[in-house]
């Protein structure tokens, strides 16, 4: 499928004071998708994002947004994008409405246009009632909503979000996901960083897994998981003597990708459960193998992360928090 390219990153490298934050990164973001940059803290996601929104100049390589170079045509890029920074990029003393009015002026909107848009956005993020209270009285979730409204004020073609649900309670989190899905439905392209696996899995159409500044894997969550070699069916047999017979019966069947004997049974990698499970059961019946237990395990994104980085995403996040 040929899809319009919204963002093109090619061989992007960014080094600060001798430390390489991002190294030789290349990927494309398609128009209309939610694209996630997934990785533990310090992996280089934010550096990548900040290059795309013109805040950083690459050491080498290029990035372009809707065909405009982020360095040479930074001003054009800034007109086309909206940005939602990590939480707290809020002036405690200003009201929600004043935040939006300030940004309206910075995007050079005429007053009438700005007033209309601000009213719409406050309604969208459900901040109409507290709009004229100082932001220091807002809860974490409300601040985040205000952040998103600020990002949407320029009516951007592409919205960039840095860890949009970091530190939010579950409810606010789901609400933010809803907004992002709705924006996508309206045709907006969304690029976000996250270190939450479930967020990446459920929200993003495609992901770039980044670790230590390098691109480890790229694709939709489903593709990435399938790329691991499919789902796993683990069988535990009542009589272990029948394991070799079942292994040889299943090996080579079309739905099985790999069959491996384990001490108590078999591990079978399969492409799709619909085809594989009946075939497995049929062979087991035919050979008169009694099954004690069947476990069906779909690879999680964390498995993808482990395969590509050699460690678990959850571990790496904990490592960083422990530091």
């Amino acid at each position, binding site marked *: 499928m040929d899809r319009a390219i919204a963002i093109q990153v090619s061989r992007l490298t960014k080094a600060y004071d001798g430390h390489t934050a991002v190294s030789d990164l290349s990927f494309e973001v398609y128009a209309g998708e939610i694209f996630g940059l997934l990785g533990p803290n310090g992996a280089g996601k934010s550096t990548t994002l900040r290059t795309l*929104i*013109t805040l950083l100049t690459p050491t080498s390589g290029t990035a372009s947004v809707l065909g405009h170079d982020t360095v040479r045509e930074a001003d054009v890029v800034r007109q086309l994008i909206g*940005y939602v920074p990590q939480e707290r990029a809020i002036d405690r003393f200003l009201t929600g409405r004043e935040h939006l009015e300030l*940004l309206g002026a910075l995007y050079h909107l005429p007053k009438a246009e700005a007033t209309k848009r601000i009213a719409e956005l406050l309604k969208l993020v459900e901040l109409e009632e507290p709009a004229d209270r100082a932001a220091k009285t807002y809860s974490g979730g409300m601040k985040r909503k205000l952040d998103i409204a600020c990002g949407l004020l320029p009516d951007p073609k592409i919205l960039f979000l840095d860890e949009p649900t970091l530190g939010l309670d579950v409810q606010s989190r789901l609400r933010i996901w809803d907004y992002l899905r709705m924006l996508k439905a309206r045709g907006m392209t969304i690029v976000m960083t996250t270190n939450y696996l479930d967020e990446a899995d459920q929200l993003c159409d495609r992901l770039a897994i980044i670790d230590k500044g390098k691109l480890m894997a790229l694709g939709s969550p489903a593709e990435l998981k399938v790329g691991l070699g499919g789902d796993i069916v683990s069988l535990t047999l009542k009589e272990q003597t029948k394991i070799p017979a079942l292994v040889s019966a299943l090996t080579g069947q079309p739905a099985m990708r790999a069959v491996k004997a384990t001490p108590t049974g078999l591990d079978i990698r399969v492409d799709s459960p619909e085809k594989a499970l009946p075939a497995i059961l049929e062979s087991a019946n035919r050979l008169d193998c009694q099954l004690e237990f069947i476990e069906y395990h779909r690879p999680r994104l964390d498995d993808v992360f482990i395969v590509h980085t050699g460690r678990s995403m959850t571990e790496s996040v904990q490592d960083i928090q422990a530091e």
Partner: protein
Amino acid sequence: MAQYWQEIHALTMRWVRRLSREKFSMLFTLVQPMLFWLIFFGNLFQRAADVQVTQAPNYISFLAAGVVVMTVLNNGLAGGVDLLFDKENGFLERLMTTPIHRSSVILSRFIFVMTITSLQVLVILGVSFLFGVQPATGFLGVAVILMIGMLFGVGLTAISMAMAFSVKSHGDFFSVLGFLSLPMIFLSSALVPLAAMPAWMGFLARFNPMTWAIDAVRPLILSGWTEALPHVGMVVVVMLVFDALCLYGSAKVFRRAMG
């Protein structure tokens, strides 16, 4: 150009709003220099200060010029603080992703700091007036005092903003600020005339731009135009050089910090 003005206006109004929401902070900002220096220090040293040495009718009238310039100094050096907080909480980053002229942020800060400082200087001159200090050069003299204050303030604010962009943490910023402010005051003619200082301090004070500013403001308050004009001419030259150096240095920092 209309866009440029729209940006600067919106950003300047943000500083004004912030200040008006911090009522306590505003009160202290306005009152502190008068209270501490002019009223307490001025009256405290009224009899200890030798009229022969200060060459002024009383110590408060001598001190007024010093307090005016001290206020310019402190406001200028603190002029970058809000940008420092903006940098630390990501607000600056948000501003930098909008299609604004990079200089709008800096200019809005200059406009705001200069306006607040001028208002404070007027209040200080007003309070001095209540203590019987009448500016010898009248309203025109007051206007010249404000101009000198702004000339000095621009350079100081530039240094402060450059520092705000360069420091690693706001702890560093406030340490440097605390370290600069008092020595600048003691090594100037704010509290004691140069001639009455120990030779080495007097020598160092001559290199302090603050001394030049005070030596021009003081005759505007105490003596009159004939005595003041040569000093005013001199301070304009000194301040233009000072500002040029500060702006040149800080412009480099701004460009690196804001792209």
